[in-house]
């Protein structure tokens, strides 16, 4: 049976507790991050929740100068852009997240393959403040 702790919102509930979670298939060993209730490799529902160490490398990135409403509300704009990337985790899967702690004046200096570690950022203030997964140079 599917573990309730693997429902699709569990990922963000774990982020709120500074945890990066995924799932491991008990039949074929495949790891998914974010977690899945059904293994995408062998379709078994015998999967368990895992926590990962959040280490990885940069697989692709961009620096966004025209933000969506949610990021504009967090203070980002053409003069204050942000970096978002896809991180290849040591655990295997890749994940999308904001990348912080980089000099964004010249994005050409950001290098694919650079080592990263997980961190967490809070966007919004007061009651609308919410924690998000992010990565920073390791």
């Amino acid at each position: 049976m599917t573990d309730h702790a693997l429902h699709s919102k569990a990922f963000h509930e774990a982020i709120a507790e500074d945890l990066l979670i995924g799932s491991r298939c008990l039949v074929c060993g495949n790891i998914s991050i974010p977690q899945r209730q059904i293994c995408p490799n062998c379709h078994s529902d015998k999967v368990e929740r895992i926590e990962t160490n959040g280490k990885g490398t940069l697989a692709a990135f961009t620096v966004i100068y025209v933000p969506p409403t949610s990021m504009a509300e967090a203070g980002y704009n053409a003069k204050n852009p942000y970096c978002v990337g896809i991180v290849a985790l040591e655990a295997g899967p890749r994940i999308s997240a904001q990348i912080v702690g980089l000099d964004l004046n010249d994005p050409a200096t950001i290098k694919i393959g650079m080592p990263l570690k997980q961190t967490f950022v809070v966007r919004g203030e007061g009651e609308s403040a919410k924690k998000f997964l992010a990565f920073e140079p390791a």
Partner: protein
Amino acid sequence: MAKKLSRGVAVVGVGMSKFGVFPEKTSRDLFVEAFQELRQSVQKGFDPKDIEAFYMGNFTSDCFENQAHLAPIVASWVGISPVESTRIEDACASGGVALRQGVLAIASGEVDVVLVGGLEKMTDLPGAKVTDALALAADSLFEIPAGFTFPGFYAAMATAYLDRYKADPDALLRVGIKNHENGGLNEKAQFNQSIKDVMISKQRKAAQKGLPIPEWADEMAFLKDPKSNPMIAWPLRLFDCSPVSDGAAAVLLVSEELAAKFTDEPIFVVGSGQASDGALAERASLSEVPAAAKASKHAYEMAGLTPDDIDFAEVHDCFTIAEIMAIEDLGFFPRGEGWKAAMNGQTARDGSHPINTSGGLKSKGHPVGASGVGQVVEVWKQMHGLAGERQLRGNLRHALTHNVGGTGQTCVVHIFEKRN
């Protein structure tokens, strides 16, 4: 191995509105324009009462026009009620998927005459709301919270592509220059202007306002000037992005055995393929679009053709990098060679593989639900010698259309054949 269609399907007429910004028109008005042009294009004429089914591609009239359940409304507006009418939503691939559903409906034997439409009315919303609406095509739980936008996704693919193949980023700008060159010759294009024309009109505007007149050595200098071409999502700039557009397109499909009743010059749908994928981060490679390769493989197999048989193609260049990946995914060039083809003119009208003779989404415009159907309009025009100044030379026997939803979560490919 892909099966052949159970029976043949022919395109016997096409039409489209101009693509652009039309504050006075709604999506149904634009579709009426496309439908009326389609009626004119059917050589022997046709009675709208003959239509047995209507498949309509539309991404999100819900957001753009505060209107869901649009298909029966549009059907009524062109006078074909009570024909079964279905809206197809697969983001920016909605139009191409509607075409595939029309093809499959005829191939199944259930119906003989199908109207396929695509429409989107995007420009009523302010820019930030359009960005938010388009973002609905991504994974709202695991991609949007990261801060991605659509230019951002394709920009990330561009960094992966440029890094993997040590490609010259100027190739991106070359795609834009080529597609604007073609769109400058297409009266239906939103940007009916080459980049050179854009430069001249900017200089004129500055002169009219009494401002200093900007000077650029050439198109590349213009496209590298952050004032004329600001960065949107590194490394993609404004002119790497397709515009926000209003527009509609329509295609009339009939069973092969009925085609001669409508026209002596039908074109046949000989290949159709569609594939899906998960979020961008889940893919084995970020420098290609696996679902496009899979959909095209299916379509080639169905048609019994190879990429070398294709005379020209309309591909989904929502961003310049998308065209470079597409011409590799579709097998026109080997992996890692697409950027070189863009650099050395192989994809131009006089090149070995003409791509996006219409101007593509980049210059023609990208009213998202209409784009996949609009591509067929260009195939029809080129195959019938109706493309005016942008007409390709030679006997055009096979053409391909490639329509992508999101970052490639949906890809749909069609192959067309002219037999006379």
